[in-house]
């Protein structure tokens, strides 16, 4: 697996930030916008710095989303020991919604009025973004791009599993990437769901989300394939489900029907019951609507005393299309190192919910011993696109 986010470049920096409770959310530095009042979880690198790291010439037209994708994918492939010498059918499944919007919004008037930046027209769409990332490595025999807003990367992992089972690929690399764009920062602002303070998921005082950005990928393969290649898997993807809330284009239903069904069907798919889940990695964006709806769905399925629940959004910001795989990587780190990522910025329980999220200072956490074997991870998107994934220790 591989990751780049506000927590740093790579799995090690991510783990360290999670274990020391160091948030990557802060004042806006890289995006050119007048809305500097909103805290964001930016990747702490300019595009030029990322291009340098990747050895890409300055003259090559790239987008921020694809650069982050390349960085995360580079770590992923190196860790899984995948390269062009493998002679395998490797599929790349990428989730993104913003695609090349960062350049389109920068050069849109040029697209309309002159010919100075036409090279960025064909980097706009989501498919072009995935191909730009894939072409840097040149090892993929099939590429799919999923765009279901904030559940895109989780759905990429779902498709990856199905594709493997169908025998169409030997190995699947799945995940998502998304940079913060002025377009969706302003879009979320018009919906009045951005907090001017650091976000507070599952807190009574929550007032919205902080946008984040990043990219993360996981390598999926059968046990047999891993054995043949002599690699040790990190975990098992035990189950998954994709459902639709079918309630509203941008809001979740009060009873969290889509979320409830996603978690329930994922458990069924894994052949598990709620008692098997040791930790719920919630979507928990910090908006009034999401946390109330998701919390209600959790209570409906797990009862009034659910297993530990936390949202990592206060660490990374909401990485939108990348969130599903950013959190899949974090769940795998939790399994590997036996810890539960805390829900930062929590102080007051939501009155309507019977449970508090998992929180506490590093020293308070250190004394707790929790056997973490199986994790349920939620990713919910606009349009009610709800997906749950279940990861388990080998």
């Amino acid at each position, binding site marked *: 697996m591989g990751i780049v986010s506000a927590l740093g470049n790579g799995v090690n920096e991510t783990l360290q930030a999670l274990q020391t409770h160091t948030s990557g959310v802060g004042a806006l530095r890289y995006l050119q916008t007048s809305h500097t009042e909103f805290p964001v979880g930016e990747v702490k690198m300019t595009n030029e710095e990322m291009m340098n790291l990747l050895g890409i010439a300055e003259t090559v037209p790239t987008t921020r989303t694809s650069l982050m994708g390349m960085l995360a994918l580079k770590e992923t492939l190196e860790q899984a020991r995948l390269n062009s010498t493998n002679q395998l059918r490797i599929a790349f499944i990428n989730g993104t919604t913003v695609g090349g919007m960062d350049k389109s919004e920068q050069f849109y008037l040029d697209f309309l009025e002159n010919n100075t930046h036409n090279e960025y027209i064909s980097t706009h769409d*989501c*498919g072009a973004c995935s191909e730009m990332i894939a072409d840097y490595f040149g090892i993929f025999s099939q590429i*799919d791009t999923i765009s279901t807003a904030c559940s895109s990367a989780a759905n990429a992992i779902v498709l990856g599993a199905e594709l493997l089972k169908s025998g169409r690929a030997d190995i699947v690399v799945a995940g998502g990437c998304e940079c913060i764009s002025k377009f969706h920062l302003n879009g979320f602002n018009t*919906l009045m769901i951005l907090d001017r303070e650091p976000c507070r998921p599952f807190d009574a005082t929550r007032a919205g989300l902080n946008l984040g950005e990043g990219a993360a990928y996981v390598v999926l393969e059968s046990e047999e394939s891993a054995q043949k290649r002599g690699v040790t898997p990190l975990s098992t993807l035990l189950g998954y489900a994709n459902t639709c809330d079918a309630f509203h284009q941008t809001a979740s239903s009060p009873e969290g029907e889509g979320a409830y069904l996603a978690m329930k069907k994922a458990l069924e798919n894994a052949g598990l019951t709620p008692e098997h889940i040791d930790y719920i990695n919630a979507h928990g964006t910090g908006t009034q609507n999401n946390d109330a709806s998701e919390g209600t769905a959790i209570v409906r399925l797990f009862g009034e005393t659910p297993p530990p629940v936390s949202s990592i959004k206060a660490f990374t910001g909401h990485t939108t299309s990348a969130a599903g795989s950013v959190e899949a990587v974090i769940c795998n780190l939790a399994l590997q190192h036996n810890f539960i990522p805390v829900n930062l910025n929590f102080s007051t329980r939501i009155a309507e919910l019977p449970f508090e999220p998992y929180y506490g200072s590093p020293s308070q956490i250190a004394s707790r011993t929790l056997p973490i074997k199986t994790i349920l991870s939620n990713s919910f*998107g606009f*349009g009610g696109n709800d997906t749950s994934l279940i990861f388990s220790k080998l």
Partner: protein
Amino acid sequence: MSVYINSIQQISAQQPLSEDWFNEPIMHTEAYNRAIDVDYKQYLAPNVARRLGKILKRALVVSKKAMEESGVAQPEAIITGTGLGCIENTEIFLEKLVREGEELLNPTYFMQSTHNTISSLIAIDAKCHSYNNTYAHSGISFECALQDAFIQLETGKIKNALVGAHDEMTPVYFGILKKSGYLGKANQHFAGETAVAMMLSTKKSERALCSIDGVEKMYTGGKELEGVRGVKKLLSDVDYVMIGTNGVDEHDAVYFDNCAQLFSGIPLLQYKNIFGEGYTMPALGVYAAATCLHKGEIPNHLFLGEKNTKKFRKILCYNQFEGKNHTFVLLSR
């Protein structure tokens, strides 16, 4: 498990919600033609018809018609392929943002700007909580959606699925894509729009058009198409190959070269001459091929070469995008 196309509907540059194009195709001469809209008030509540952008209205109408015809009220999967999503609303929001700054923007345009707005609108309308997904991979978006549905049907995970392919082309975006060289070239078939919805099922209905025997995709990154593993099994007994030639020599050369290598001697069919060019046009290729199989006849205007009157049972739809992506959909009677 066999997979059938039990119903299929389209709104395009040809007569909408109709098969009139089969005998009397509209031959467009402009470089850019919008789809022929229906009177949406006949199909949607007036407040819904007013509120939604073109792509959403069209998607909702063709989906509702396809579901109605196949007798499925709540599909077990709703999967959409779209190259650019709701580009008209994206454009409005974006233009206001770059011209007038970051204040006073309208949330409605943003809410209906994401690619997955389409699939979720259909789900909201049908009150359908099942699997819901959206693929946005430029020229192969439809085949990504189709393959997802096909895998789930083939393995018995689901029994039916609504698969859609939707793209709108605004005058502004046509201008932009003309600059990038994708559309509006000399001799190129016109730039068009797509709204196609099909109900797939493992159970054949009385009015089923044809079966889908395989859906394969390959990425070559521009390298030559070789080692067509997985595709070979689709190639036996193919009577016709339906391809996406669009009148531009270097674009069509990729088709002709690969066809000569893979399907040597098999007669070729076309569809973009009457439906136009666009990211999800391959769905109209599948639609045209399915209609031919259903009628047991191929109209003159679809032949790329000499007209042929032989009996046929299998049509392979081959699409390539920029020589990098190649997709194969095998349909049979």
